[in-house]
């Protein structure tokens, strides 16, 4: 009888341990996981959770412009930080988001560079002190009658550096969020190509019309050339985006809502 109870207890404990392992074991099976977890999350508590949505296509048609969307809205608790990285990039860190206000969703869409097939991950620090992780694998073999990048050294950006385009879109679905999209001319050089020093936007801040910060971002060189950043917003009719690169140039733009 006692033996039986002990056995049951052991079985329960084992089950708990297994359930825990399932939430903390890398579902993408990436060789870099342990190293990068320690680097980005330290010894903090974490778990893998499908509510952290990371969207990207299954293959990188253009490895210099891979669209990525990260969205932690479904966690349904306040989020203080989101770190986005690609395991097998020479520079793993892509962006860190600090959502600061309910009027902007804990999400971002942008485009990134991938060097090879890799896991792309988002780690979301929620109010309960736990990091929630989402991610997806992308194949970078290219496809079909793909050409290599035809972009030759084009001095276009030199005279247009920091020029921005933007628009604040009305909600796509009724009751849904509005969307702000910003595009800025910037080479986002990684420093990994011989003779071209790193030159990239490293900080950004999204603000409302009064200058109240909504989200702060730290960006790294894997963000694609001429960054295109999309934010989901609620109840704002004008926004400002401020950016600064590692050479000390700063750029800012203001955008008004449709009809605003």
């Amino acid at each position, binding site marked *: 009888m006692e033996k039986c109870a002990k056995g049951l207890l052991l079985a329960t404990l084992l089950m708990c341990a297994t359930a825990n392992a399932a939430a903390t074991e890398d579902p993408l099976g990436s060789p870099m996981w342990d190293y990068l977890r320690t680097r980005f999350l330290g010894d903090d508590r974490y778990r893998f959770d499908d509510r952290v949505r990371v*969207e*990207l*296509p*299954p*293959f990188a*048609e*253009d490895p210099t*412009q891979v*669209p*990525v*969307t990260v969205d932690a809205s479904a966690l349904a608790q306040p989020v203080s930080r989101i770190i986005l990285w690609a395991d097998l990039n020479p520079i793993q860190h892509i962006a860190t988001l600090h959502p600061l206000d309910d009027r902007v969703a804990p999400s971002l*869409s942008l*485009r990134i560079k991938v060097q090879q097939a890799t896991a792309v991950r988002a780690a979301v620090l929620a109010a309960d002190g736990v990091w929630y992780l989402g991610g997806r694998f992308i194949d970078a*073999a*290219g*496809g*079909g*009658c*793909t*050409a*290599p990048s*035809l972009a030759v050294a084009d001095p276009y950006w030199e005279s247009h550096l920091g*020029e*921005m*385009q*933007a*628009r604040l*879109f009305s909600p*796509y679905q009724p009751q849904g969020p509005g*969307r702000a*999209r*910003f*595009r800025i001319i910037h080479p986002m050089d990684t420093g990994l190509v011989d003779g071209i020093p790193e030159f990239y936007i490293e900080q950004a*801040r999204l*603000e409302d019309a009064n*200058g109240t910060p909504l989200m702060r971002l730290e960006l790294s060189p894997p963000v694609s050339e001429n960054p*295109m950043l*999309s934010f989901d917003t609620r109840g704002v009719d004008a926004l*400002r985006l*401020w950016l*600064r690169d590692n050479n000390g140039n*700063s*750029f*800012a*733009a*203001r*955008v008004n809502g449709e009809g605003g």
Partner: protein
Amino acid sequence: MRLRPPGWLLCLLLLPWPLWQAHGSGFDYGLEPRLVAPDTWLVEGRREAFSRDNGGHIVNVAFIVTDAGVLLFDTGPSRRFGEQLRTAIARVTDRPVVHVFNSHAHPDHFLGNQAFADASIWALPDTREQIARDGDGLAENLYGLVGDWMRGTEVRQPDRSLDQALFEFGGHRLRLLAFGGHTGADLALLDETTGVLLAGDLVFYQRALTTPQTPGLDVWRQDLERLAALDYRLLVPGHGPLDREGRAVPQTDTYLDWLDGLLSASAEAGLTMNEVMQTPLDPRFADIALGRYELQRSVSHLYPRYEQRALEPVQKASPAPE
């Protein structure tokens, strides 16, 4: 350019040989020319994307057998393909291949050129320029996608420029049509003697079209308008089955129209690239192979232009203090 075998190949060579042989299966493309019109033969490609399984045999290749010799339209994705094509042609005629046409600068259409070094290889002047500029990169890229089927493949430039509108050969009167909607330089060929239109990649049929170098979907649609006005009995698309009912051009045009509308409307609604890639496919194209795959590729190639059109230049705000 010399193509080096990738590392995985070396590993493969270390495997016990029966396993290795099963994997390699002799690199036989299984080319079977089919007589589709008087003097006109078709080697039809599979309705697939490039893979190690198909070795790049996803493209249609056609040839016309005349008293003066053979005229070949496109040469396939690799040296092996070109060599096997040459053998397949020799099975149906003992006349030599005299003229080769490369319809455009996509690798599956010209990398078989090596096997026809003794023929005149013709292309539009801009196609020749594109092959000279991008050919090595395209070949290397294809090596990555299909593997050792590509062994020994090197770019063999087309050596003759097509600038005439008519080409008479062996009793066939061929009208040369220079377009640009697919890659900026796209050749179609109408055999007025038989009524066969070799459309190259300006027309895809039952296989979703590809857009990596299109100058614009509107340019492509203008080309199709001109193609539709031609008097032909049978159309050989660049990819997909041949068309005797006049359906391939309208299908290509309908798809381009849909894609253009989708990209414009999405950009105007502020959608991200990922959202557009996940758009439900139009039921009209349910039977077309590789719909989702090619939509993802096309969004990647084309959506940035539409996004930029939908965005507005912004007022510069004064840089904020930190």
